[in-house]
């Protein structure tokens, strides 16, 4: 039976037998069926198969299962319908999760907000107390905060200035080298100095005229008896020029120096801090004093007493050790006093850069050539990287692959076998 000879396709005939054809088409197929022996034969075969299938009877649903379903229906009707709201019913069926989700999100948000609101005052107090402890001697600095979290009043600020910054007091004077006497004279003037503060400031300035600012920086340092501890200048062409410097100026000149530096341009960032080293200095002085006394006693022993050579050598060794300690402590003391006497300014000066059009860039062909070379090198490096990686990690990967692959293959085989059962 070919479709050329038959205007009715086998599927069409089957659809007609199934009652799936529109009425008009069904009539034409019906007429054809009466005349065509092949189609009648096919219809008979299909009907025969259908009858075979219809002979497959299934046992009745057991009574206990029917009773269980009816009981569930009764429970559903009596309990859920009557006592639970509709959205809970929908939740049980799987589509009412949205209200629950919204409720959960609102609850979580409320909990988070509540916990944050409870922590805020404590956090503020914590931050404030740490700020004041870190800032230390920045009395009189705008925006300084007291330990209680409240801004420092002018009166408190003045009191702190008096207590902390004693470098401007009449008892302290700078010598020709810029060293301040009175601070290091611990034996006699320790009662005069209430606190020793190592001050540090940080300043970032944007300037228009970079060259002039560079000259001004030198003159400011000379005027205030300061010096440059470190300086890095970047002055490349077609790029923003900048200077990063670490300056040391006498502590009593810090305020004036900062004021002059700020006048160079627009201040972008500024910060000041102070580290109190009074206790550290006092400890150092006491230890130094003890060591010196020990040294004197040892020298007296060496001069006044006689004994074995071994004893003499032992005393000399002890004197040498104590001497070393004294020198180390003296150096430490000098360094500490220098930090107090000379404040540090971390300065960054940047130029307001304006890009300029120039023709100094390489030609297009050169750039293409360079790109091709770079691309070739990159590809070669990548390839080499792959080779090196597999040479180094390949055997290990192979072992792991075998370890993982065999169970995976077994699982796939079992999965296919189980799926084939359906």
């Amino acid at each position, binding site marked *: 039976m070919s479709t050329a000879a038959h205007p009715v396709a086998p599927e069409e005939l089957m659809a007609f037998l199934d009652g*799936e054809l529109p*009425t008009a088409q069904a009539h034409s197929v019906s007429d054809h069926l009466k005349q065509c022996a092949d189609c009648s034969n096919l219809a008979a075969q299909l009907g025969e198969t259908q009858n075979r299938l219809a002979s*497959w009877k299934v046992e*009745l649903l057991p009574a206990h*299962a029917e009773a269980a379903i009816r009981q569930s229906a009764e429970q559903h009707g009596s309990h859920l319908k009557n006592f639970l709201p509709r959205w809970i019913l929908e939740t049980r069926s799987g*589509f009412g999760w949205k209200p629950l989700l919204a409720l959960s999100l609102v609850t979580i948000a409320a909990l988070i907000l509540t916990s944050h609101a409870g922590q805020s005052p404590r956090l503020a107090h914590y931050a404030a107390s740490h700020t004041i402890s870190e800032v230390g001697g920045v009395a009189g600095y705008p925006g300084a905060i007291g330990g209680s979290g409240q801004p420092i009043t002018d009166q408190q600020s003045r009191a702190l200035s008096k207590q902390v910054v004693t470098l401007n007091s009449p008892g302290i004077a700078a010598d020709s080298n810029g060293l301040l006497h009175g601070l290091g004279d611990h034996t006699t003037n320790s009662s005069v100095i209430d606190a020793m503060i190592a001050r540090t400031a940080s300043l970032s300035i944007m300037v228009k005229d970079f060259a002039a600012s560079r000259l001004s920086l030198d003159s400011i340092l000379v005027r205030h008896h300061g010096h440059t501890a470190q300086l890095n200048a970047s002055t490349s062409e077609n790029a923003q020029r900048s200077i990063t410097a670490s300056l040391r100026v006498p502590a009593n000149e810090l305020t004036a120096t900062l004021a002059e530096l700020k006048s160079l341009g627009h201040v972008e960032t500024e910060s000041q801090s102070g580290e109190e080293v009074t206790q550290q200095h006092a400890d150092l002085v006491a230890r130094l004093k003890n060591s010196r006394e020990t040294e004197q006693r040892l020298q007296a022993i060496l001069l006044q007493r006689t004994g074995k050579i071994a004893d003499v050598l032992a005393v000399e060794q002890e004197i040498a050790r104590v001497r070393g300690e004294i020198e180390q402590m003296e150096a430490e003391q000098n360094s500490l006093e220098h930090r107090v006497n000379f404040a540090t300014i971390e300065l960054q000066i940047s130029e307001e850069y304006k890009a300029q059009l120039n023709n100094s860039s390489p030609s297009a062909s050169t750039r293409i050539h360079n790109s091709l070379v770079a691309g070739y090198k990159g590809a070669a490096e990548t390839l080499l990287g792959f080779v090196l990686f597999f040479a180094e990690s390949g055997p290990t990967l192979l072992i792991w692959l075998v370890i993982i692959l065999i169970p995976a293959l077994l*699982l796939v085989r079992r999965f296919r076998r189980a799926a084939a059962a359906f």
Partner: protein
Amino acid sequence: MQDALPAFVLDSEAPRTAMNDSLANPQTSNEAPSPSHEHPSDEHLMLAFSQGSAEAFSVLFSRYKQPLFGFFRRRLTDPAQAEELTQETFLVLLRSASRYQPRALFRTYLYAVGFKILRAQRRKTIFRATFIGVRHTSQDPATHDSPDANLAIREALAKLESTEREILLLREFEQLSYSEIADLLHLPVNTVRSRLFRARVALRNILLGSAPNPVAATLTESEGQV
């Protein structure tokens, strides 16, 4: 296809006369069943049930308990599992009654639910068999499908390709129309028609035991035109 000659019988366990009727007189099957007060439609009953009518569910349950059990029983070898899934399907129906909207025929909806549950069950069984090594409780079909004919049909159906087998079962036993099967299996209607034809031919050949049938040859010619 919607104005097709209806050959549907709600109870798949009822005697099959549709094909023979259409052969005899195509006009007779052109009368659509109209809902009446004595025999309200499934959709009306489901709507009534969603509004709290226990009687409506009772009528629906009476109509579909056996077809649904047959649906599972023909696809599972374990009768206990078929009972369990039948119960589960009706429970889903109970729970989702409040959301029911009569967009499609109720039985399509019911079999779609049953189909989802069946697929979930198969996934679970395959997972257990794969990862835990627990075989599904397939009992000897001979003890439950007692007549030899049933066993032969089950074995013949098992040899069909899975989608074709499903299309054939949905058509022959659940009495779904081509478009309903297409909706259920997410296939085009023409594909359903051609694969149903292929399944019927293949099943006949298997049942005959069997040499190639002339019908199979025509299938090859006509398949490309569908």
